[in-house]
């Protein structure tokens, strides 16, 4: 706990390195740790009933890779030819 206080004091100073910041997060996480004994977990049936693939599909946003599309390079190429032509005139 002493170490945590010491790290918090220096958190905003320039001397505070990324490594120390990680230690601080780790210490905070440890302080927050909760231990549960003989916990009742949901049954397999209950978990199966909570499956919702439609929600996953709803939340899913496909990543668009512009650089993989030939149109991306085509338009960039065309724009550079046009701008070089304009500059040369």
């Amino acid at each position: 706990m002493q170490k945590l206080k010491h790290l918090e004091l220096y958190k905003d100073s320039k001397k505070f390195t990324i490594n120390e910041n990680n230690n601080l997060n780790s210490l905070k996480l440890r302080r927050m740790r909760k231990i549960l004994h003989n916990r009742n977990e949901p049954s397999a049936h209950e978990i199966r009933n909570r499956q919702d693939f439609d929600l996953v599909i709803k939340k899913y946003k496909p990543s668009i890779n512009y650089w993989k599309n030939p149109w991306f390079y085509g338009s960039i190429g065309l724009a550079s030819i046009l701008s070089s032509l304009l500059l040369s005139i």
Partner: protein
Amino acid sequence: MSSPSLYHQSDTRIQSELRIIEKSKKNPNHFAPLYEQYHENIFRYIVKRVDDVEAAYDITSNVFVKALTNLHKYEFRGVPFSSWLFRIAKSELYQSFRDKKARRTVSIDKVIVADIFEEFEESCNEERKSELMQALRKINEKDLALIELRYFEKRSYREIGEIISVTENNAKVKTFRALQRLKKVYHK
């Protein structure tokens, strides 16, 4: 409750999974069989580490959304698809701790406590149990994660290795060292 092993899969099953993955890259609706197959395992992994069951369901759902979003990056490198899912689950779990949406929890039962004392070659009583709980609060996150996977969830070293991205032997060494460190903190 120990989690069912997903790591000793037949080649046919792995090939069938790969076919589903390839189809899902083109059409995400094809991902449904993999979601149904792994949902319970991923949920159980998460629920043991968070105190709120509803938050565990949310995190599980986010794991599959992230898996689907990054599916185009997935390449088969000899490890089962579940290993990739567990790595996403781990990252989502720690993200939710950082966002304070969930609280880091250690789920432990009587049998597990007895197993740990067996490893320590000591008898189990109430005072010692409370000291062990204090030690579990003090050890670092990496050691706790290894102890949870091996002793609380009864996973094989191969599974642990694939979840934490190290070899089976390395997982064995790391787990042994984590237990030694727990023992040291417990005896302090």
